[in-house]
């Protein structure tokens, strides 16, 4: 996935700002990367280079950390990050079926982002809501006891919300004319 010049610029600035509030050295590495990801939704290569320099940690070590941990993303997530729980309880209650429903509806595979960057699809290990299995997170919100029809329902609700926002914008623009 190609990043735009603005995205790169933003990544560098974010990395600088975050690193400035931490002491140099490896001990700060993971918290700094986490903060960058919290801000940007991912940790692009340019940010890693910047962090390496600012914290005085070899770039290869930064890369080793980012790739070792499941949580770090190298590419931008969708505006709606869909995460399907694949923990034991969710698996036994049909998590795989739910994941496949999303794949089918979004027409992407797990780990991918839709071309319009509206959705990304991931699997997560147990989010600790096993009593509500199977569980899906859309951004930070937990959806309990999900069924394939509920997946359709969520998508439909997103669609409606989006149309409402766009409709609102159109009206606003109309008013400004």
């Amino acid at each position, binding site marked *: 996935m190609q990043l735009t010049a603005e995205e790169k610029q933003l990544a560098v600035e974010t990395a600088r700002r975050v690193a400035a509030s931490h002491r140099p050295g490896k001990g700060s590495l993971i918290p700094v990367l986490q903060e960058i990801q919290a801000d940007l939704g991912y940790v692009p290569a340019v940010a890693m280079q910047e962090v390496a320099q600012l914290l005085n940690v070899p770039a290869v070590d930064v890369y080793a950390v980012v790739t070792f941990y499941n949580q770090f993303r190298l590419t931008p997530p969708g505006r709606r990050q869909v995460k399907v729980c694949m923990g034991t309880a969710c698996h036994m209650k049909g998590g795989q079926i739910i994941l496949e*429903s999303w794949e089918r509806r979004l027409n992407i595979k797990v780990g991918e982002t839709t071309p319009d960057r509206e959705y990304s699809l991931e699997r997560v290990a147990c989010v600790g809501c096993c009593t509500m299995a199977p569980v899906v997170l859309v951004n930070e919100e937990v959806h309990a006891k999900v069924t394939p029809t509920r997946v359709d329902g969520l998508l439909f609700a997103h669609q409606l919300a989006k149309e409402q926002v766009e409709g609102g914008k159109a009206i606003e623009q109309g008013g400004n004319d």
Partner: protein
Amino acid sequence: MIEQNLARLVQEAAGRYGDGKETPVVMVGAATCGRAAGALAVLDAVSQTVQRLGLPAEVREVGCLGHCYAEPLLVVAKPGWPAVAYGYVDEGTAGRIVEDFLVNDDPCIEFALAALEPNELIPTFADFARGACEQKVVLEKCGLIDPQNIDHYLATGGYAALARSLMQEPEAVLEEIVRSGLRGRGGAGFPTGRKWQTCREAEGEIKYLICNADEGDPGAFMDRTILESNPHLLLEGMVIAAHAIGATQGYIYVRAEYPLAVQRLQTAIKQARSKGLLGEDILGSGFGFDIAVFQGSGAFVCGEETALIASLEGEPGLPRVRPPFPAQAGLWGRPTVINNVKTLSYVPHIISKGADWFRSLGSEQSPGTAIFALAGKVVNTGLAEVPMSTTLRQLIFEVGSGIANGRQFKAVQIGGPSGGCLPEEVLDTPIDFDSLRQAGAMMGSGGLVVLDQDDCMVEIARFFLDFTRQESCGKCTFCRLGTEQMVRILDRITRGQGRPEDLDLLENLARSVQAGSLCNLGRTAPNPVLSTLRYFRHEYEAHIKEKRCPSLMCKDLIAYYILPDKCERSCDACVGSCPVEAIANNEDRIKVIDQAKCVKCDSCRVACPPQYSAVVKLSPPDAVPGGGGVK
């Protein structure tokens, strides 16, 4: 001095803490599980009702009572009445309960789950089979106090154990923990006192205490619940531990998937600092200790002590060879104690009630209580605390009220991905560290997933192996490649392509992975395979010899079929539910599944009204009349 400082804090707190004796309190369980069930909307409805009616009531956001199956949960404590818990509430019922109970003195018994104290009106939790098994120590205040308000914790006796321990010599505190026989609740059951002693005696000015809140086992949520429901209990335990071992800095390593726990911990730490219960010169004792929260980044292996330390040091989480043990040389090479959330949460209770009290619970070799997360096919999912040596049967059939939907119990998966699956025959095993190991499982951290007749044991073994394969850090060849091979074999079997010699091969590989791995991830990874081979060999054989999945779970070995004589022709429920339009009418308007199109999503079976139950699964797939047109 220490005593007076605490007394002052408690006095201040008491003025600000409502316990339902003077003004009514309405509590809404809003831990992650409650929120998933809609607790925040309920909380909103309760606040609005209280406001609209101008009631002098306190609305309190609390953690989890453990009765997750009934969430969202509401507790109403009204002066002159027993406190009552309500389950399965929604915005509407919540508003009604608040109005009827607080204004009209009608406790809405029809919605009540149970009362929290004995009375003549409503049975208490203790009156149910579950209550008879449960004995809450660590979970005592969970779901009843505001986790974000230190005053509630203080006013209900919190931090008294800390004051008491600070007035003693560290050695005396340590001695009490040694005498209590407390064993670590993070999985292995290592004696906590001995670990502390090693660290205390180790050379070095600077020592660290780390709380392991990584809770990587899928199916486990005990630690999350404690962190979200009563974070001060953990903080208190940590300060006492730090005093005993001589640590000056502490870390709580929390997994990334627990954002609410992190937030509540951070609030709690700030509050404890502002009251002088954390930081320099705690309660005027001269002892200083502070705690920082470190967030994990989603690697299961980081729950392992040495990998966790590597991760804190900013490295990839690779386990290291032991010895030296972390208690001798841990974080930044300094003596470090690592304990689980539950282990540390027992500490204040042991200090205030004494080692003998602790030993009076549970069994000789495993004293105390055990906390379990009950999930899967059991009726009452949730969190339960029972004395050690309670049996698995009691836990599943009394605490959990048995198997949901009238199905048959098949197995219980205990000890996380590297635990084991135990069948009916061993349900009378008392739960403690040693008996479970003998049965071929392990205590683990307390995740308990109940499986019924619809769950395939080969598939579950495949699932766990796949999990450990993905989470292997890759340092050891056997762990990295051995598990990979095992997954491939299991995969093949679940797809009906297994060979008779596969079972011996699996067993051999399992032994080699156990022997050839450095850390316990690899050493225990084969447990699910070995325990299912030991207890459920016939299921493997059905997959291999008959290409059939007896539990009708393995996708490649089943087909969906609509029973013609059961299909109610004018009902189109299944047709509408199918995401791939695989269902059509035949000339008699009976629904028929196009097997080539069906993606086996189960929607039609769920959609078919129970009075017809016309959609069934068949295995092997060619059991569908006419061959079903598959393979």
